């Protein structure tokens, strides 16, 4: 098996220390940082995402794989910067105001990173103004809003309204997700996309960035 396949495979197994070693080894062998990223790390995370979408693996495997990816990216990042490799897009993510639940949000964040996106994580209890300001400050392509509670869903409509008010609605796509969210709710508030799971959300976000 080649080095890049090794990186992908060990990432899928969540073996962060070995992924770090293998990424360093690939760099030492003169492989291009972007190739290591694309064919090693993102390839592995993509496979994990597909398996999760098909319910073949569970959330812990995703989290552990994402940790391994971050370990590899940590080694790779200075080389990516040096080589002028840019992220595939920028997403701002957070759990909406009044809501402190973050397991789903964190999962989407990891999947987004697994697609090679730059992710600005605003955490939990994020107001519509904070979402929009972060999108402006980071020139984001996508805003991803998460909610678990029925009542906090309403804040997502405010995010759409705030983006319109600040004049960035045509520049940024707004995605919504979380336990109580449905396609009809997404449509009703004028958001751009609802996805039922984290892997699908990352696919859609990437599509919006390209």
């Amino acid at each position: 098996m080649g080095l890049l396949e090794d990186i992908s495979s060990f990432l899928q197994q969540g073996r962060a220390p070995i992924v770090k070693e293998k990424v360093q080894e690939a760099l030492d062998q003169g492989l291009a940082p972007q190739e290591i990223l694309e064919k090693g790390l993102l390839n592995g995370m993509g496979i994990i995402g597909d398996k999760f979408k098909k319910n073949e693996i569970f959330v812990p495997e995703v989290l552990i794989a994402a940790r391994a990816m971050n370990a590899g990216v940590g080694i790779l990042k200075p080389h990516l910067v040096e080589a002028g490799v840019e992220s595939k897009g920028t997403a701002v993510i957070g759990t909406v105001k009044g809501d402190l639940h973050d397991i789903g949000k964190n999962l989407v964040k990891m999947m987004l990173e697994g697609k090679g996106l730059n992710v600005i994580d605003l955490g939990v209890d994020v107001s519509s103004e904070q979402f929009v300001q972060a999108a402006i400050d980071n020139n984001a392509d996508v805003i991803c809003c998460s909610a678990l509670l029925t009542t906090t869903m309403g804040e997502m409509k405010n995010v759409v309204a705030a983006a319109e008010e600040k004049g960035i609605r045509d520049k940024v796509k707004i995605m919504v997700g979380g336990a109580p969210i449905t396609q009809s709710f997404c449509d009703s508030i004028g958001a751009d996309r609802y996805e039922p799971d984290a892997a699908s959300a990352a696919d859609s976000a990437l599509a919006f960035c390209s």
Partner: protein
Amino acid sequence: MHNFQPDYRHILLSAQNIETSRLPLYEHLISTDIMEKILDKQFSDLYRGDLTDKKSYFTQYCRFFSVMGYDTVSFENCIGSVLPGGGALGNHADPVIKTRQDFERYPWDEISDMYFSKYAKDFEALRIVMPDGMKAIGGPGNGIFECVQELTGYTGLCYISADDPELYADLFKKVGDTNLAIWERFMKEYGDIYCVMRFGDDLGHKTSTLISSEDIKSHIIPQYKRIIDVVHSYNKPFLLHSCGCIFNIMDDLIGTAGINAKHSNEDQIAPFPLWVEKYGEQIGNFGGIDTDAVCRLDKETMTEYIKEVIHRCKGNGGFAFGSGNSIPDYVPLENYIHMVETVRLYRGDTI
């Protein structure tokens, strides 16, 4: 809305999977804000007082359930709230257990005493003021999975599963031991107040279980069984409240752990009648209308929704009706009242 005579035997039958002549109402939790508004009386501050105050608190608490047409009072005190350094699940606290060393020095043996030291007066007060014909549903809240996460956090637990599988297994066993000790003492000292024993342990999310079904079967269900065996030794049924998509472990919850009834349903995962149709031959089913639907539907639509659910559930064993989860303070008061009145009119109450 009174002249209702509660009779806990209705819900006891539902939990034993026998369809009752009077459909019982049930909620996992109801916000005290909602209770105070309906009773037009503030009483929540009394909870923090002495035994006399607590008796006054529980008098109003029980009166609410009786006034609204419930046969039982839902009441629990959560084990997670007494875990030293806990809060990694509910309060975003830094996990207190990350390593074997953290695990070894954790004061496991003190937790049971802490629980009863903090909550014994609640149960004593509840016993004293329990109205005729009523009993409680609940007990020590939080199941094994939630208690472990209070100590490790969810993400931390996932990392431990990969980094130290032995510690991962030991965490469930140790929490199982600790919770079992609490349940043994609880059943002995306060079991008489309750007709149906329950804890909540959210095992699922929207599309699957939060950890693998194999891990749940290996590490969690054996600990459930130990507790449920104790409950059964007192001839009481056990109701599991667990949110999310947990179909992949239901057979084990029923066949191995021995749950008698299950609560919690979300329409986006499976409407309540589907649970009843799927498991009604084996266990009692509690739930009915998605909490989101209670929040959002207009009265006419909600009435039709409720009638349809009840119609589909009849003839499939015991069930009790209410929201798919709880009535938190954000549920519009008039919607909650409409839900209750619809069920009460259906069953022929004079309201």
